[in-house]
């Protein structure tokens, strides 16, 4: 990239900066910026790095609890899980790159979020991912699904970190803009957590990991703009991942962290060397002086601009205690990684970059961080969709059930998660396919329950209620395995915030998350915003993905969804309301997406959940499934298929079977237990004022039988449920 002699308005525009923003830059600098400085401003002031549209809203999120060690603002959030152990986690998007180049986009998304977690001193112990694709019939969808799943597996499997679950949804609003949100959970000791504040002057700044190349230049800027038909021309800006190097980097970093040589460490993620150095100096209240001549380079004749903006993967920046360089270098050489002292911390509060004997950038750190623009963008809150839509009462329930369990959004995801190594580390005590995955804290009886959730169609109907629902479902899924929900990371995926209606979705989404997190004592300890998810002006459904983590005190007392015994009583906890608005039944069977999203009664959610969790903790119940997408009968079918044990259910005096069996009202669970236990539980439920009903029992016959509606063989249900994904992928490509 040749450096222009003069910065023109055209160049400013190409850097994604507005005229007003450029004027402000000149004011802060007291002069015209150099080309390198302009590049640095453009990434640091991008939506991706500065959160300029969302920051004023994100303040409303609750971030504190006695068990929160580190809330938002570091590479990842940290919670205390007892006995000196800490869980460190975060979720982050890699949407734009994954659409352009699905394998590398998804792979580097996995790599990036793992670095965020191990840069804080944690060994990653589990991965999840929340994926949204366009409609299955869209000509690109199959290719994107295959590429993204391979990319996630290709990176995570090599790292030796189990990928234990996640979500896959299809909707036409993602046709031109898929979502790939990856979550990583790691484990550290509470007294060995590493942060990114580059404190002190004169300390060596070291570069570790891979060499710097020209890949990913301006990735953060790309992630902060809408797509158009030319999106694929941006392929050269997608980074290329090397999980082998990342695995070495992980082991080398953990080895270095076992010494006390590190003052601060941060991964080079979006905007690479620029953001890592600026953020570390900013947090440490110091300055940083870099000499790019010492940066390990993969290509020849790289300019300062390219090196500062490269997003080459598998790199970290650290500040060491003076005199500890040799010790650190020895570790990195052992792991055959690059190691170079590339600068010093200073007390000037400036980021100074030298290259080939010249100062190419000299700028105040605060201009890049706290002086970055923050917008109170105008927004309009949408009137939520209302009403419980009509439906055809004559449709046979059992036929609809088969269609639903074999529909794209409800069918088995086995085809996906069998490509992910979910058993490595030998601590995955609850595998993909349940409500939450559970990984044991190595060498203990504790477990971490992990889930990702959001129901975007609810969020479109009602951005506020839908966001509440995402938090509630995450909380419920963690509860359903018997764990205590502790904290969440949020990944807010929305369209263009410069449009008031999209900004309204964001504002309402934040409010919904805030309210639910507050009511459920489930603070937000980190997250990521991905905006401008639009193609040709068409926005995605609002998708505030919630990654939740909870603590299971004893992995031996854990519930699963699979029926375990014949003759168990099946009990519904929570109130049936027959809410068909925005349900999958309405969409898949009636072909309509309408009505109000289900309301979330947070008090009932908490009451019912606390009741169920106590039953599991006390050893009374080992079979639990939350009721969500598809409603009660789909949940029941999933329990029967998972355990290969039949069930017989019926409810006396039911006015309308369809809304009862397929309604998606919230705060509900199905539990199964021996009849004597069920009597005691009913007694307790009455005393606690929990709405409940015994709706049937598990049976010897391998069928699902519904009074007055008929029965269906489990084998037929399974064929539909397991069949969709492999059949879809195997279909000859339409184009």
């Amino acid at each position, binding site marked *: 990239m040749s450096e222009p002699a003069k910065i023109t308005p055209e160049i400013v525009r190409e850097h994604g900066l507005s005229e007003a923003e450029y004027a402000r830059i000149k004011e802060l600098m007291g002069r015209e910026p150099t080309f390198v400085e302009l590049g640095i401003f453009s990434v640091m002031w991008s939506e991706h790095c500065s959160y300029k549209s969302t920051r004023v809203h994100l303040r409303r999120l609750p971030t504190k609890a006695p068990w929160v060690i580190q809330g938002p603002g570091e590479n990842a959030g940290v919670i205390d899980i007892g006995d000196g152990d800490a869980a460190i986690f975060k979720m982050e998007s890699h949407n734009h790159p994954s659409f352009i180049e699905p394998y590398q986009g998804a792979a580097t998304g996995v790599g990036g979020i793992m670095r965020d977690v191990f840069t804080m001193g944690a060994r990653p112990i589990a991965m999840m991912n929340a994926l949204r694709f366009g409609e299955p019939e869209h000509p690109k969808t199959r290719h994107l699904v295959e590429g993204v799943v*391979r990319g996630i*597996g*290709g990176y995570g*499997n*090599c*790292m*030796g970190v189990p990928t234990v679950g996640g979500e896959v949804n299809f909707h036409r609003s993602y046709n031109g803009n898929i979502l790939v949100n990856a979550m990583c959970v790691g484990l550290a000791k509470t007294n060995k957590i590493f942060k990114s504040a580059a404190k002190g002057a004169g300390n060596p700044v070291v570069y570790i990991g891979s060499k710097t190349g020209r890949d990913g230049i301006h990735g953060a800027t790309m992630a902060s703009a809408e797509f158009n038909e030319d999106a694929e021309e941006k392929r050269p800006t997608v980074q290329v991942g*090397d*999980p*082998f*190097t990342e*695995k*070495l980097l992980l082991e080398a970093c953990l080895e270095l962290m076992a010494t006390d040589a590190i003052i601060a460490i941060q991964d080079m993620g979006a905007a690479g060397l620029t953001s890592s150095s600026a953020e570390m100096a900013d947090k440490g209240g110091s300055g940083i002086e870099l000499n790019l001549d010492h940066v390990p380079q993969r290509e020849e004749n790289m300019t300062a601009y390219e090196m500062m903006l490269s997003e080459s993967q598998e790199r970290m920046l650290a500040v060491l205690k003076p005199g500890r360089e040799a010790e650190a270098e020895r570790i990195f050489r052992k*792991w*055959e990684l690059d190691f170079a002292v590339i600068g010093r911390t200073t007390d000037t509060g400036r980021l100074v970059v030298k290259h080939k004997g010249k100062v190419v950038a000299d700028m105040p750190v605060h201009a890049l961080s706290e002086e970055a623009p923050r917008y109170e963008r105008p927004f309009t809150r949408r009137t939520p969709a209302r009403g419980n839509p009509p439906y055809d009462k004559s449709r046979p329930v059992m036929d609809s059930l088969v269609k639903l369990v074999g529909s794209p959004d409800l069918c088995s995801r086995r085809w996906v*998660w*069998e*490509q*992910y*190594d*979910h*058993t*490595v*580390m*030998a601590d*995955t*005590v609850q595998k993909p396919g349940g409500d939450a995955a559970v990984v*044991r804290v190595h060498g203990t009886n504790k477990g971490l329950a992990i889930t990702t959730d959001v129901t975007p169609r609810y969020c479109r109907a009602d951005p506020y209620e839908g966001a509440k629902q995402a938090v509630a479902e995450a909380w419920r899924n963690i509860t359903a395995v018997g764990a205590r929900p502790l904290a969440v990371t949020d990944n807010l995926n929305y369209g263009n915030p410069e449009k008031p209606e999209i900004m309204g979705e964001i504002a309402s989404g934040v409010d919904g998350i805030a309210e639910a997190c507050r009511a459920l004592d489930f603070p937000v300890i980190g997250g990521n915003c991905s905006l401008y998810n639009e193609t040709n002006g068409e926005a995605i459904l609002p998708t505030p993905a919630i990654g939740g983590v909870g603590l299971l005190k004893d*992995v*031996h007392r854990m519930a699963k969804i699979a029926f375990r015994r014949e003759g168990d009583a099946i009990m519904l906890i929570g109130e049936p309301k027959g809410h068909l608005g925005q349900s999958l039944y309405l969409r898949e069977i009636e072909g309509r997406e309408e009505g109000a999203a289900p309301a979330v009664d947070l008090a009932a959610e908490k009451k019912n959940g606390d009741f169920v969790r106590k039953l599991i903790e006390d050893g009374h119940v080992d079979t639990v499934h939350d009721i969500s997408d598809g409603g009660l009968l789909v949940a029941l079918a999933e329990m029967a298929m998972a355990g290969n044990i039949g069930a017989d259910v019926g409810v006396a005096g039911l006015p309308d079977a369809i809304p009862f069996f397929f309604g998606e009202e919230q705060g509900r669970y199905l539990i199964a237990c021996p009849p004597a236990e069920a009597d005691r539980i009913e007694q307790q439920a009455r005393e606690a004022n929990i709405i409940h009903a015994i709706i049937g029992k598990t049976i010897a016959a391998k069928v699902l039988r519904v009074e007055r509606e008929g029965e269906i063989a489990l084998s037929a249900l399974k064929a539909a449920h397991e069949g969709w994904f492999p059949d879809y992928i195997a279909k000859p490509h339409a184009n």
Partner: protein
Amino acid sequence: MKTAVIVFPASNRDRDAAVVLEQVTGQKPYMVWHADSEVPSDVSLIVIPGGFSYGDYLRCGAMAAQSRIMRDVKAKAEKGVAVLGICNGFQVLTESGLLPGALMRNADLKFVSRDVGVVVEETQSAFTRRYNKGERVVYPVAHGEGNYYADPETIARLEGEGRVLFRYAPGENPNGSVNDIAGILNEKRNVMGLMPHPECACDPLLGAPDGLPMFQGLVEALG
């Protein structure tokens, strides 16, 4: 009984193997770095663990087979020390010539991670003595290149000499390997390689502990 686990860059089931070895022997195994020149001489069992040694670059196991430590592993195997290669370890053993044949891309070209039924074909070995002949066990697999192949002559020898120790249960072959072969033995019957992960099937919380008899049997035979 002393054991060792070889650690290559990007081995990733080294810890899983170490946990089981400590459980059955009562002492931690030596974790031997690939660049070292020797495995300690008091070792009776060497495990080459699963993972992506050298990132699977070039060919799975090919670069690890050329590492310095493998010269000593070969020498020790020659002297009769037991060697167990699991998954990537099996690939390293075929690449280094300690076992015949090769492991190719899975027939459906996809990585596969699932529990599979495996039949114990032969119990005349230190690795399988605790099992019953014909017993069906369940181990997880997690690999992209587990499709075992050897020329018909070699296969006939392996089969004829009782050196096919494990076979995928009918209909459960996850990778297309010839004769459903999951694990084989060398001629001297002290080196075994298999694609499934018995070391990850030793804890009842993770499923049936069907892998434990392999390690208990090894302790019995070698300890």
